[in-house]
């Protein structure tokens, strides 16, 4: 089977999974009383409406119909992106989600490369220097990283750098700059090209914004990097150790290749194959880690938005957010599998 057929087959398998995800969320929503479920359909708040107005809406959205009819109505809404109204933040759920994706994405594009490069580097060197001080230190750090809950680590950083030293304020920008930015946006002096503060500030040539945004990304990134790198280091280290023990390594050394050539060309390439397979796990870890870090540092991304909504039992937001996360997670896993099939042909041929 060629790589192209493999990808097509995997893409086709996505359809039943995504359908299942949507059905599961619909099934979970059925727990909620019908008066609340209306908020999954409306484009405005139903809080202040009179009960009979809500009852009219129940009829209008077919919530008095049998379950499968309800599913059809709901599904036809979800597929065009109508997830209802978010009572917790008083906006349409889809708008709320889309408005906050860039902020979260910004943390991801800063922290993901650091995690991958740093994690693989540490893991490889830890394996090469097995049982030396460097290895011992890395192992202790990685065990600490997996045992330290991200919320506790985040709160500690918050207390030290935000509360005690007052180097950084929580949020995405310092309060003064945030206010200034809102005004500039209002009067058209600052254009939102991408929604990513790091890129927009450069495009608008306001470098102090770039610096401020970067500083505010440091703590959330540190939490994610510390915890996720720990996972990656452990896998890389053990897989590198296994690769170094293979006979082809001895053969390569015996035929006179240098130590570095053997480590980086022969061992590391093979050691990275299992590492690719766990990167799907890493994406899941990042997504849950983002909820916690954004909540701790009051970073206005999707994670903290969903967490706040969940605390207020805002069903429309948690439904939309969990479906959104499932799509990202499934696609990420698909990419990982394709990558795996690409670098290791035994997978698609087998």
């Amino acid at each position, binding site marked *: 089977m060629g790589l192209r057929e493999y990808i097509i087959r995997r893409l086709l398998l996505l359809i*039943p*999974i*995504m359908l*299942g*995800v949507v*059905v*599961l*969320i619909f099934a*979970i*929503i059925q*727990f*909620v*009383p019908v008066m*609340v479920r209306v908020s999954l359909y409306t484009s405005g708040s139903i809080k202040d409406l009179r009960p009979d107005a809500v009852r009219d809406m129940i009829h209008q959205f077919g919530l008095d119909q049998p379950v499968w009819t309800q599913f059809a109505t709901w599904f036809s809404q979800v597929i065009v992106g109508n997830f209802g109204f978010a009572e917790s933040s008083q906006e349409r759920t889809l708008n709320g989600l889309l408005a906050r994706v860039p902020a979260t994405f910004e943390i991801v594009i800063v922290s993901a490369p650091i995690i991958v490069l740093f994690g693989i580097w540490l893991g490889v060197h830890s394996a090469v220097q097995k049982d030396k001080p460097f290895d011992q230190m890395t192992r202790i750090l990685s*065990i*600490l990283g*997996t*045992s*330290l*809950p*991200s*919320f*506790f680590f985040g*709160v*500690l950083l*918050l*207390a*030290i750098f*935000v*509360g*005690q030293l*007052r180097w950084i304020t*929580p949020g995405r920008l310092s309060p003064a700059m945030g206010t200034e930015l809102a005004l500039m946006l209002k009067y058209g002096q600052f254009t939102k090209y991408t929604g990513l503060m790091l890129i927009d500030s450069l495009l608008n040539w306001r470098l102090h914004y770039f610096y401020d945004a970067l500083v505010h990304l440091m703590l959330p990134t540190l939490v994610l990097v510390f915890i996720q790198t720990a996972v990656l280091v452990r896998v890389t280290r053990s897989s590198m150790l*296994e690769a170094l023990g293979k006979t082809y390594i001895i053969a390569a050394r015996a035929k006179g290749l240098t130590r570095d050539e053997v480590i980086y060309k022969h061992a590391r390439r093979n050691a990275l194959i299992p590492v690719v397979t766990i990167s799907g796990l890493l*994406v*899941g*870890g990042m*997504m*849950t880690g983002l*909820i*916690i870090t954004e*909540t*701790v540092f009051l970073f206005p991304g999707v994670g903290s938005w*969903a*967490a706040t*909504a*969940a*605390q207020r*039992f*805002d*069903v429309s937001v*948690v*439904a939309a*957010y*969990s479906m959104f*996360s*499932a799509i990202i*997670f*499934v696609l990420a896993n698909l990419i990982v599998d394709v990558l795996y099939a690409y670098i290791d042909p035994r997978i698609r041929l087998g």
Partner: protein
Amino acid sequence: MQSKKKVGNFRKSIAPTIKEFLFILRRVLKSPLSVAGLVLISYNIVLAVFAPFICPPTPGTSNPYLIPRDQVLGFRIEPTAPSSTHLFGVTRLQIDLLYGCVWGTRFAFQLGLEVIVTTLAIGLILGMISGYYGGFIDEVVMRFTDIILAFPGLILAMAFVAVLARSGWSTLDAAVLSIVLIGWPGYTRLIRGEVLRVRGEDYIEAARASGASDLRIMSRHILPNSIYSVIIVASLDFGSIVLTAAALSFLGLGSQPGTADWGRLIYDGVPFASMGLKYWWTMLYPGAFIVLFTLGWNLLGDALRDVLDPLSRRK
């Protein structure tokens, strides 16, 4: 005569298991890190078992997991520093932290046990049926696990808790149920795989040929031969289950305010964290208890994985 022979047979049949257990134990005790893990776990078990003696609850209370408030200090929001009456100090609303941390250990074990027993039961039943019968049932069960595994765990749990709480459940019950919901697919798949491995063995054929029913084959022949590794995996998951519950509590989606729950106590400490290290005890003590707990399970888990991995064990 007859009974003696039976005992001998029993000894003979159990001998490999004992030998294996001793081998694992010897290997685990060799590495200092795993001994540290065992010590940490034992310390946590002692804390959990003797919690009522270390911090006696107020007499006549119906729920000892509710932390008693200091009546003298009243309802002040500001935490009071550690003193001789409150060794770990008090947090928001004058809740005693020593009591909270110690009973939090018991709370963690109780919650972890509840979740593991339920998840294992579901996983065992579904995994056995799925692996043994195969075909259509297998397909259905596996597709269900696919759907659950399409979500990042904590996110599905969060959504489930919010929905259940909206329809009148207590958030703690909802949290326990949601951790079961995200946990069962893993065990189901694991057990299914084990059953598939065992199913083709000759002794299963023999049992079937001698007229044993499906139920008997599953419970007497397949289950004992496939449960061993699953139980080890499940017990090692204890740390991560407690961590997930604590994360939910930290998001305000777990136990009620004032419960002896580490995640909840850290959540209570967040407002004070933004005031700096002035109220350090409100977050440091519950956090240290969680870290010591998960550290223990992770250290032991690492060692066990190395020992049980057939590729690396006899080196």
